[in-house]
């Protein structure tokens, strides 16, 4: 960013913390950008003539006489069709050189869509993974995160979902991503020949953490351009939102805010909601679907980050290692897609809702039987059958390596019911049992 002739240059910084600097300045607007000794910063607090700036890259090496220039505008992104196929950093500057994108300059983190102008999401996104399509169907315009421990292959599953989803644009917002993971996504998109549909905003672990705070807004501003202006179906992938929240905590801590649960800022819910609520089905047909990743620590979903996320998003997909089959499965108990009711049994076969519930219930019976077994009790005949069913259900349907269409998933479930249970044991409406029992 070059300085303009009329801009005033300040050279006396009063206070420096690890993430912020403050100085005396006048005529400064809230949220506007500034450059501090060549580093990008944003106004976060103004008290009289004392202005506090958050320096995205951190304040290492900034001296009290560093030049401070205010830009007079909040962070912006130039939006245009030229975004497609490009990779950017957190500031929206092209990585690997290349010409800047031509187009309109828009403020990031813009206004909310009027709830009354939204449309109800109704289009199913098929992923081929039965743990998702059968039990937790995703709908366009939905926002849903993967809850996974760091050792699980969440980025791979998310990439698979993205490639199979038939979206017009896929926008990747990478926060604190390792360079290896970034290259994985890049190669995958290249090999799949979909680069022209991809836009990436990436903050890798090599970049300063506070920069991450810009990534979701950048990605979603680009998404709103394609969805609202162009009427396209946009899929936004955000990974990893836990690292985003950690950056929020760093900043609020530096600003002496009183932390609430788990050292997170009291505004965590609103901060995350501002991002996730950008998911929308528009009347024009355009839509923004957000699939995010929230990494957990030891599967703990009561931590403030997954907990607040769960209250905001429309469900969550929970990955788990299944010890019976040795595969990674989409956990049917803890996973949920809140919007599935809008499509299952309507856009899919009529028996979908009941088959889904019955299978999960029987799987839960098996979990009960397993506890019994572990406690050293004899198993009843029903318990034995439930356990055998659970193993095959896990292998043929819950596992993330499944790739079949929904009707096939339903048929597979019916076949498993017939193999292990009596008709009266599945508690499904009898007319459906008569029609589909294998």
């Amino acid at each position, binding site marked *: 960013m070059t300085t303009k002739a009329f801009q005033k240059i300040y050279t006396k910084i009063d206070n420096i913390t690890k993430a912020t600097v403050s100085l005396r300045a006048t005529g400064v607007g809230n949220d506007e950008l500034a450059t501090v000794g060549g580093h990008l910063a944003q106004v976060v607090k103004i008290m009289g003539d004392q202005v506090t700036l958050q320096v995205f890259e951190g304040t290492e090496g900034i001296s009290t006489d560093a030049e401070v220039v205010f830009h007079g505008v909040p962070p912006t992104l130039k939006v245009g069709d030229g975004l497609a196929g490009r990779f950017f950093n957190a500031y929206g500057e092209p990585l690997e050189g290349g010409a800047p994108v031509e187009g309109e300059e828009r403020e990031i983190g813009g206004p909310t*869509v009027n709830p009354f102008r939204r449309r109800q999401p109704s289009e199913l996104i098929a992923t081929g993974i039965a743990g998702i399509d059968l039990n937790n169907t995703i709908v366009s315009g939905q926002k849903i995160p993967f809850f996974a421990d760091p050792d699980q292959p969440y980025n791979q599953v998310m990439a698979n979902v993205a490639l199979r989803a038939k979206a017009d644009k896929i926008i990747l917002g990478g926060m604190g991503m390792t360079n290896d993971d970034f290259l994985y996504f890049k190669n995958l998109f290249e090999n799949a020949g979909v680069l022209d549909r991809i836009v990436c905003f990436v903050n890798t672990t090599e970049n300063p953490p506070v920069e991450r705070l810009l990534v979701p807004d950048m990605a979603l501003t680009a998404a709103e351009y394609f969805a609202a202006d162009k009427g396209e179906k946009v899929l936004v992938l955000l990974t990893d939102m836990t690292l985003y929240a950690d950056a929020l905590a760093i900043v609020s801590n530096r600003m002496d805010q009183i932390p609430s649960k788990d050292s997170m800022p009291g505004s965590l819910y609103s901060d995350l909601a501002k991002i996730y609520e950008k998911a929308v089905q528009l009347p024009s047909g355009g839509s923004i679907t957000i699939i995010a990743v929230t990494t957990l620590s030891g599967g703990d979903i009561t931590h403030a980050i997954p*907990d607040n996320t*769960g209250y905001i998003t429309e469900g969550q997909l929970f990955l788990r290692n299944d010890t019976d089959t040795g595969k990674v499965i989409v956990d049917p*108990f803890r996973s949920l897609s809140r919007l599935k009711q809008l499509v299952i049994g309507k856009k899919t076969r009529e028996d979908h809702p009941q088959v889904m519930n019955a299978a999960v219930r029987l799987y839960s019976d098996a979990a009960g039987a397993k506890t019994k077994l572990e406690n050293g009790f004899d198993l009843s005949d029903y318990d034995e059958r439930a356990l055998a069913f659970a193993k095959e259900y896990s292998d043929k349907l819950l596992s993330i390596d499944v790739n079949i269409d929904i009707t096939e998933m339903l048929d597979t479930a019916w076949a498993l019911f017939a193999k292990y249970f009596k008709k009266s044991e599945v508690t499904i409406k009898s007319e459906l049992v008569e029609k589909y029992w294998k």
Partner: protein
Amino acid sequence: MKTTGKVQGIISNIVIVRTEGAVSQNEICYITVGGVKLMAEVIKVTGKDAYVQVFDSTRGLKIGTEVEFEGHMLEATLAPGIISRNYDGLQNDLERMESLFIERGTKTDPIDYEKLWDYKPLAKVGDIVTAGDWLGEVQELWVAHKIMVPFTMEESYTIKSLAEAGEYNVNKVVAVLTDSKGEDHEVTMVQRWPVKKAIKAYTAKPRPSRIMETGVRAIDTFNPIADGGTGFIPGPFGAGKTVLQHAISKQAEADLIIMVACGERANEVVEIFAEFPHLDDPRTGHKLMERTTIICNTSNMPVAAREASVYTGMTIAEYYRAMGLKVLLLADSTSRWAQALREMSNRLEELPGQDAFPMDLSSIISSFYARAGLVHLRSGATGSVTFLGTVSPAGGNLKEPVTESTKKAARCFYALSQQRADSKRYPAIDPLDSYSKYLEYPEIVDYLDEHIEEGWVKSVMEGKTLVRRGKEAAEQINILGDDGVPVEYHEMFWKSELVDFVILQQDAFDDIDANCPIDRQKYMFDFVMEVCRKQYGFAEFEDCSAFFKNLINLFKQLNYTVWKSEEFAKYESEIRALVATK
């Protein structure tokens, strides 16, 4: 002369204003930025500095910006034309906003000032009236909307003149009232009321004495909520709070429903926008939307307006209560409102209480719940506001400040359990932790004796005991093993499972099962209890589980079929035959 001031400091949406003149706590002011006026509310005054919370984004705001104080608190506009509107937290009509995005500072009228209403007077010239008395009425959709003496008029007045019956817009002066000093006051169909104050235009607030049907068995049968009562639904995410609240909003036996979507997902409100205009209200035959008003401040809308939204909802509910209507107010979720309070308190650098919530959280919550209730009006009619809020406890832990504070204030407690949700036992209302204090009210017991059947509460208690015993039996079986306990334990456990599957669980997505009227609830509960009272004496526990699984399956089919239909009778006789075999 309005007080003015200048912006002195900005911390996110808290703005410090150096004032020139008097300001009052909770006064509304406007800050002009980039040509638009941002509404804000005074929340703290120190010396000449007023701390105001801005109901919008403060991006680009500069020091020295002009601020104008309005001299009144945040007010709701009360007039015909509110029912079936969709408002934001500050009562702007969302439908009137043309653009796709809500631009900063957008304001729209809450009601239509041009629309003509068919007015007819109810009072007579010379009548002595006080605040809340009915002067006339207009037909708002299917509701006889009373035009009242404004709640802000505090003494008694003599009616000097009244408009004749005719077609008028809301600004028409429909009455002139003379006060004790002989001064005249003009009354139109519109009045304003500060949302944070309770409307007290009633003669008495008795204890609730009847129940409000919701069509949800786990509530109506097990823990009914009173008409004019209060209740809350805490539950971790994914436990089905919203689905349950939507079910109640569709089925509850109320004249009007006010739904406050407070800091929750926009798509949930969209669901109501999409469905309610097409769904029929089973009791009146009108469309559901014709009895529903939505106040919507979704989670990405400005935080400060979240707090305003619950108060706006309550004020509208109280307004319609004063017309003698039964109003049900639903708020999802009150935790978001508490979090908004926390964000403000944090920015004001107040000393925090538990989990960084403000110290007075508990009193704020209880004074809000206290605004609900059944009231006797001066006209002799009764009106009620029933309030049901959801709470989203952090980490699903019910020992957190919002749940604990609410527990002190609300009379019904519907705890949603993660364990039940995980095993897809919906609605996930925990039968043992949940309670309704109303079952202890002698008035309610009498009401149930009269309206359902003699001894109903006793029978319900028997059902609850059965569920508790079943749980104890299940624990014993888990510890000692299937063979390690007497077969009676299995029988006990399976009877509780029967009650759980048939009465407590309900399929909110099945057309028939979703809404269970009270007569059907009585029939089903009596039937299940009859089956449970019999002692079966199985020889083997396997026989016991097989028998009850079969029974549960048949009862489930019963729940899915039209009551009193041929099919229903068929399943019923199958059940009776099965029970007779043992």
